[in-house]
C-alpha cells in the first residue's frame, strides 16, 4: 500500500515540475473518472453484499505535450473493483496502468511504452481500451508510424499485451509483432478522378510468439495471420472489404485444433441527403486470436477484434437484456439498414420532417462437418467448413423499426418496434436454456417546458415466454440545462398471471414479479459531471462497441464523477 501511495506522490510531484516546464510552451492536460458503489444485501433480486461494502474504480490520465513530443500515463485504482468488473482477469490495487512517450521526427512517429493501435477493421490486430467494460489489451513495447509519401502509411508494432492489473499492469506471456501498409490513392495521386473518389488498399501481417511447453502436443510457437483490405468510395458509395487468414493456432478456445482460421467482411453503403442505405455480411471461421493459447477467458489478450454485425440499441431493455456478441469460432452474419427523412412540407414530413430507421440483422452458425481423428493424432483438424455457408442453427436475429417525429415546437415522439431471436445457450453460455423469442415496443417522448427545462420519458415493454418472462420499464428524466438532471426509472419483471404459462418448458411455480426502481441526480459543469444513483440495478449485459460484460444484480448507492482538464 505504501508503495502505491509513493507512486501517486511521485507522479504528483512530476505533475508540478511538468507545470513548470509547461510554462515554457508545453501543455499538461488530462482527465479523471471514478465509479463507486455502496452495496446492500437484497435477496429478492439476488444482490449480495460483498465483504467490502464500498467498491470504487478510478482512473486519472495525464498527458504532457510540447511541440512534437508527448508523454502520458494513467493511474488506476481498484480498491476493490466494482462487482462484476472487469470482463476478464481481475483488476486489483492501485498503480500505473499505462504510460508512454511519443515523438515525431518529420514523417516518422515513434511511440515507446503503452499504445493502442488498429489495422484496418481489426480482423488481425486491434489493441484498445473500453474502460467501462474493463477491456484493455494495450500493447507495451514500441510502435513506428512512417509516411514516406502523402497517402502512404506504414506502421509497425511490437510488444506484449496487458493481461490484468495488480498494483500496475500485468502483461501476457506472448509476444505480438505486426506490420501494416496502406495506400490511399486520392491522397497519393492528384487527378480529376481522385478529387471526388478514392481507393484505399491495405495489407497487414501479425505474428505472435509463445513457447511450447506442452508435454503431448507439438504446438506452433509462432503463429502468423495476414489480412488484405480494399475500400472504394465515391460521393454516394462506400464499399469496404477485408479478408483475414490465420495459420494453425491450437488454443483452449478452439479445443487445440490445427485448422487454419479465416474471416471475410463485406460492407456497402449508399447515401444521399435524406437517405442512407447500408448492407453488410461476414463469415468467420476459427478466428479467436489471443496472445496466450491458454488465456483463461475469451476477454483476455485478444490480438484481433471481430465486430458484430448488429445494431447497438440505446434503449435500456433491448440494449442490456439480449445484446449479441460475435462468435469467433464460427458464424455467418448479415445486416441491412435504411435511414430516411421525409422532408418538411411533404405529406408525411409535416412541418418539421419525419425520420425513419429500419434495421435487420441475423447471425447463423457456420456450416461445418466434424472430422474424426486422422492418423496423426497429435494434429487434429477438428472440422471442415464451408465458408460463408450458414448452418442450421440461428444464433440471433433482430428486426427493428423506429419512427421519430416532432409534432409541435415543444413535443417530439419516437416509436420503436423490435423483434428478437436470441440463442441464449450459445451467446450467453447458458446451456440448456431455450432460445428467447421477444417482441418489444418503446415509446419515447420529449417535451420542452421552456428554453432550458424539459422532460423526457420512455415506456418500454418486452414480451417473451422464455428466460425471465416479460419486462416493463418506465423512465422519466427532467433536465434543467445547463447543469442539472433528475431521473427516475422502474423496471418491472413479471410473467403473465395465466398459470398455464410455461417458463423454459416448466410451469412457473412462483411467477417472478420484481420491481427495480432507481433514482438519479446529476450535475454537469463544463467538462465535469457528477451523478448519484440509488436503487436496484438488474443483472444485465453491459456492452460498449462489440464487447459485453455481465453485471450482477445490485442494490445500493452509486456515485460517478468524470472530469476533463
Amino acid at each position: 500500500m505504501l508503495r502505491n501511495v509513493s507512486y501517486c506522490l511521485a507522479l504528483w510531484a512530476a505533475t508540478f515540475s511538468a507545470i513548470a516546464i509547461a510554462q515554457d510552451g508545453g501543455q499538461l492536460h488530462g482527465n479523471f473518472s471514478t465509479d463507486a458503489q455502496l452495496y446492500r444485501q437484497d435477496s429478492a433480486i439476488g444482490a449480495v453484499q460483498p465483504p467490502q461494502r464500498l467498491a470504487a474504480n478510478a482512473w486519472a490520465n495525464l498527458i504532457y505535450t510540447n511541440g512534437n513530443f508527448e508523454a502520458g500515463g494513467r493511474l488506476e485504482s481498484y480498491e476493490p473493483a466494482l462487482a462484476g468488473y472487469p470482463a476478464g482477469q481481475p483488476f486489483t490495487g492501485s498503480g500505473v496502468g499505462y504510460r508512454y512517450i511519443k515523438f515525431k521526427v518529420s514523417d516518422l512517429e515513434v511511440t515507446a511504452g503503452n499504445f493502442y493501435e488498429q489495422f484496418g477493421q481489426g480482423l488481425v490486430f486491434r489493441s484498445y481500451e473500453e474502460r467501462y467494460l474493463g477491456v484493455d489489451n494495450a500493447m507495451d513495447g514500441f510502435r513506428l508510424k512512417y509516411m514516406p509519401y502523402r497517402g502512404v502509411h506504414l506502421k509497425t508494432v511490437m510488444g506484449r499485451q496487458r493481461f490484468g492489473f495488480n498494483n500496475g499492469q500485468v502483461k501476457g506471456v506472448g509476444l505480438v509483432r505486426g506490420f501494416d501498409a496502406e495506400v490511399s490513392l486520392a491522397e497519393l495521386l492528384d487527378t480529376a478522378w481522385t478529387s471526388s473518389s478514392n481507393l484505399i488498399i491495405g495489407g497487414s501481417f501479425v505474428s505472435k510468439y509463445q513457447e511450447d511447453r506442452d508435454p503431448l502436443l507439438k504446438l506452433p510457437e509462432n503463429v502468423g495471420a495476414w489480412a488484405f483490405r480494399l475500400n472504394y468510395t465515391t460521393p454516394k458509395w462506400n464499399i469496404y472489404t477485408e479478408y483475414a487468414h490465420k495459420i494453425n493456432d491450437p488454443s483452449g478456445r478452439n479445443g487445440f485444433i490445427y485448422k487454419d482460421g479465416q474471416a471475410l467482411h463485406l460492407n456497402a453503403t449508399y447515401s444521399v441527403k435524406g437517405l442512407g442505405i447500408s448492407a453488410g455480411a461476414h463469415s468467420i471461421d476459427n478466428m479467436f486470436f489471443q496472445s496466450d493459447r491458454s488465456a483463461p477467458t475469451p476477454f483476455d489478450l485478444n490480438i484481433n477484434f471481430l465486430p458484430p454485425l448488429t445494431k447497438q440499441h440505446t434503449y435500456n431493455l433491448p440494449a442490456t437484456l439480449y445484446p449479441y456478441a460475435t462468435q469467433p469460432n464460427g458464424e455467418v452474419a448479415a445486416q441491412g439498414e435504411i435511414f430516411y427523412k421525409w422532408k418538411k412540407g411533404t405529406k408525411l414530413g409535416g412541418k418539421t420532417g419525419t425520420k425513419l430507421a429500419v434495421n435487420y440483422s441475423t447471425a447463423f452458425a457456420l456450416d461445418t462437418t466434424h472430422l474424426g481423428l486422422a492418423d496423426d493424432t497429435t494434429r487434429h483438424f477438428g472440422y471442415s467448413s464451408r465458408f460463408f455457408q450458414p448452418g442450421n442453427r440461428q444464433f440471433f436475429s433482430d428486426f427493428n423499426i423506429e419512427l421519430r417525429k416532432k409534432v409541435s415546437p415543444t413535443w417530439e415522439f419516437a416509436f420503436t418496434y423490435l423483434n428478437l431471436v436470441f440463442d441464449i445457450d450459445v451467446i450467453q453460455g447458458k446451456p440448456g436454456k431455450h432460445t428467447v423469442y421477444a417482441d418489444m415496443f418503446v415509446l419515447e417522448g420529449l417535451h420542452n417546458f421552456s428554453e432550458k427545462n424539459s422532460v423526457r420519458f420512455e415506456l418500454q415493454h418486452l414480451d417473451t415466454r422464455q428466460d425471465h418472462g416479460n419486462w416493463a420499464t418506465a423512465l422519466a428524466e427532467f433536465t434543467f440545462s445547463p447543469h442539472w438532471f433528475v431521473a427516475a426509472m422502474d423496471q418491472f419483471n413479471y410473467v403473465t398471471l395465466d398459470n398455464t404459462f410455461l417458463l423454459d418448458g416448466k410451469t412457473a411455480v412462483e411467477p417472478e414479479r420484481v420491481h427495480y426502481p432507481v433514482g438519479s441526480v446529476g450535475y454537469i459543469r463544463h467538462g465535469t459531471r457528477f451523478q448519484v444513483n440509488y436503487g436496484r440495478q438488474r443483472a444485465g449485459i453491459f456492452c460498449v462497441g462489440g464487447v459485453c460484460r455481465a453485471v450482477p444484480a445490485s442494490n445500493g448507492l452509486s456515485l460517478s464523477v468524470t472530469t476533463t482538464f
Partner: protein
Amino acid sequence: MRTFFALALFTACSFASTAQTRLPSTLVQTMEGKKVDTKTFHNNGKPMIVNFWATWCAPCKRELSTIAEKYDTWQEETGVKLIAVSIDDARSMARVAPYVNGQAWDYEVYLDPNGDLKRALNVNNVPHTFLIDGAGNIVYQHNNYEPGDENELYAKVKALVAKK
C-alpha cells in the same frame, strides 16, 4: 482506499494546472477514408465547434439533431462551423455515413475509430463538445447534453464573434 484518496487529491490539484488549449495533432478519417490531421482543422478565423458523438449514443444524436434545425441560422449569424467526430469503432463506423445523410445533417464529419483524438483530448464519454475560437484556442467545453444546452453553447459562440 488511501490510494484512492491520493488519486483524487492528485487530480484535484491538477485542476490548478493548465488545461488543453489547442487541438492536438492526431490523424482522423473522413467518411471517404482520407486521413486528416486535426491540427489542420480551421474555419477561416471564425469559431468552430468540435463535437464527439456516436451512432449508439442517444443524447449525442438528440444534440446534433437539435443543432441541425438551427444550424443554418447559426452559420448565417456567426459563420460558426460544427465538426462532428464520431467515435464509432469497427463495429458501427460503416453506419456513420448513411446515418448522417439519413438525418440530412450538414456537418463536417470525421471518424475516430480507435479513439486516438478522444484520448488526446481527454474525453471520458460522449457527448462532449469543445468550442474553439478563430485563433484556434479551446475556450469552452461541455460534457453531456440536455435540451437547451445548445442555447448556452450558441451564446458563447456569439460572444466570441462579438469580441472580435
